[in-house]
């Protein structure tokens, strides 16, 4: 379970591991209006979190984890 790159957004699902950070970073930078779907994300690695924080994509669906949701708000 990791990231599915869809047409309009990237869906982060399950446990997103550290390896996914770089691909996600590049994908987000290529997008005109980057967006992420975190509804099914259980946990993401700190490297992925900092990619999200640095690039600030639009969060389509917030994660269920309240702490993660708070940090990304």
């Amino acid at each position, binding site marked *: 379970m990791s990231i599915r790159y869809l047409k309009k957004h990237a869906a982060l699902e399950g446990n997103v591991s550290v390896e996914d950070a770089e691909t996600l970073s590049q994908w987000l*930078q290529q997008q005109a209006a980057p967006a992420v779907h975190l509804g099914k994300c259980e946990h993401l690695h700190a490297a992925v*979190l*900092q990619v999200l924080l640095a690039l600030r994509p639009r969060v389509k669906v917030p994660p269920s984890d309240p702490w993660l949701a708070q940090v990304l708000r």
Partner: protein
Amino acid sequence: MNQAELLDQFVTEARECLEAIGTRLLEVERDPANAGLLNDLFRSVHTLKGNCGLFEFKALERVVHAGEDLLDRVRNGTLPYSSALADALLDAMDYTARLVDQIEAEGRIDASAEAQSQQHAAALRALLGEAQAAAAAAPAAPTVAAAAAAAAEPPAWIERLPAAARQAPEGAVAVHYRPEPDCFFKGEDPWRLACTTPGLLAMDVGTQEAWPAGEALAAWDCYRCNLDIVLLSSADLGALQAHFRCVPEQVAFAGGPFDATAAAPAASDPGEDRVRERAAALWAEQLALLSRGGANPGTVAAVRRVLGHLAPWVLDAAAAAALEALPPSAGAAELLAWAQGQLVALAAAPADMADTAPEAARAAETTAAGGARVLKVGQEKIDRLMDLIGEMVVAKNGLPYLAQRAEQVFQQRELAREIKAQYTVINRIAEDMQHAIMQVRMLPVGAVFQRFGRLVRDISRKLGKEVQLQIEGEETEADKSVIEALADPLIHILRNSLDHGIETPERRRAAGKPAAGTIRIVARQESDRVLIEISDDGAGIDAQRVRDKAVERGLIPADRAAGLSDADAVQLIFLPGFSTAERISDLSGRGVGMDVVRTAVERINGTVTLASQAGRGTTIGISLPLSMAVTNVMIIESAGRRFGVPMDLIVETVRVHRDDIHQFKQARTTVLRGRIVPLRGLNELLALDAEPLLNAEGETAVLVVRIGSQPVGLLVDQFHGASDIILKPLEGVLAGLTGFAGTALMGDGSVLMVLNPKELLT
């Protein structure tokens, strides 16, 4: 093997130890004078303590260590075994079992266990009657005081916490966590660490440097950690320090109060509010379901599970625990009564426990999901299965002969072909089955070696020594029972090497050795044995000191000790109760080490050898039987009989012309690739009265095997190719037979004797 598997193994082993300790405690109570029982008990406790040391389970280790100290005194006879003592030990053991359960469910020990563990340890130490021990059992006090002093002036980063959170209850601790930039490469996940902080109340994630923008973004390295996390937690300082123990230099703690002026109660998170609303609605639905009446037991169980998951959200963690505590047989009415009672209580109490909810929910989930994981099967059942498969293979191999008979004797070609087709199917299945059962029993020795890296690192740090661990041959496979029995002895040997063998860096430099010591573990298979060699380049064993200590401890009379050679004297360390350490540390020095090693190895029919050179290091060799393993053998024929020779010993097979064999008195040699190779006739060695056969060209078949580092040629009659066999060691009346590694049953029902060239030739 990853950490989780290691933990699983630890839990399984800890349970076994606790089981053994439990039964032994009761036996000792019945027969307190029995030194063997006491020794056994002590050994189990010692092993358990050693295993705890592999992980950072301080609470667990403290209790076990206290128990060990107590038992040590009992064993030495300085403390009488009493029922009060047994009670304290059994209490401590039950507590330990609970901790192990917790470790299994959550992978760690709750901070709340700390206080209880100190209580248990203190209770045990009180029996020891040592005043200073009690002081040692409560080390938490000074650190809290230090933190309180530091809190006098709240640091600036506290401002980053939301104002509402800052007027947290008395005793809350703020944490400033700045992960180092390259922490991702160390396998750390700062976010996970932050999220799992015990008693987390509030959190703010910032950056160490501003995020790059525009052009700089393309060059930005997302694997350089730039996070800066501020946390507020209701857990006590000790628990937080334990939580962040791996990154102590990257965290700062501060105690409250942080903001005296803030007054309004914390506004709760809208997202959480919604979750709670939904949870309450679900809760009501479940209650409606229950009150409908006539619910069958399955429904009740399902409702109960759902309530268990909801409880942390709707009520609090304590309620979830209370639900767990309800008897499993509780009917619909009882469950309903409980749930309604909880809601009434909820209405009266303020809902402020929400912060611990996600964690509690996760814990509840794991408990619910925990079912059958490991199936424990008795060794004899697997053995029986293995024997049956062996018979099946033999029976299956009879089919080709049947096909042959059908064709030749009964002239049924069609039938013969069908039999052969059937045979291939059965053959495949039988091979798969055999393989599967082998897989059950065979493990690479690396499975045990895996945990040594951490052990060596931790212990060498604790002792202030520099040690390198080199492991070779971890892929060598051996029977599961052999591998499992190997773990404890190896840990003891490593601890001994680290504690007594390797010197401190200064002393090593003074002796002209590199500052970092080396411990090598080499595993390899040699015919029917697995050899494991643990060598260090440390100080070696001082034979004279061993003699003196053995005499001092009354293990051997002085005159006999004096008569021993140095090589024999060092073997004295295998005696039960032997220890040269001046003081007892938590590493070694209790005199169980080498005794345990030898007992454990001999139990599985292994042998331990020890060689030590003062100043140069110590080598311990463990030789273990392979009780069962697929062995690749070459089948040879000599004097009309077939024999197997283990393939790993064979260098080459050649045919040497009669004229190329040089005979000098009884010795025969030949020259192969410019080397002189001694030749021995297999018939001679086996006392078979026949000359080696020559083929039509006057050549004789020579099987060159390696004995030690020397090649030796065996004169045989014929080579018959290689075969995979299950080598069964010689047992019973045949056990004394030298020159043979064992026997194997062949496909046609014949028995193949497998030679052990090393025994045969030396």
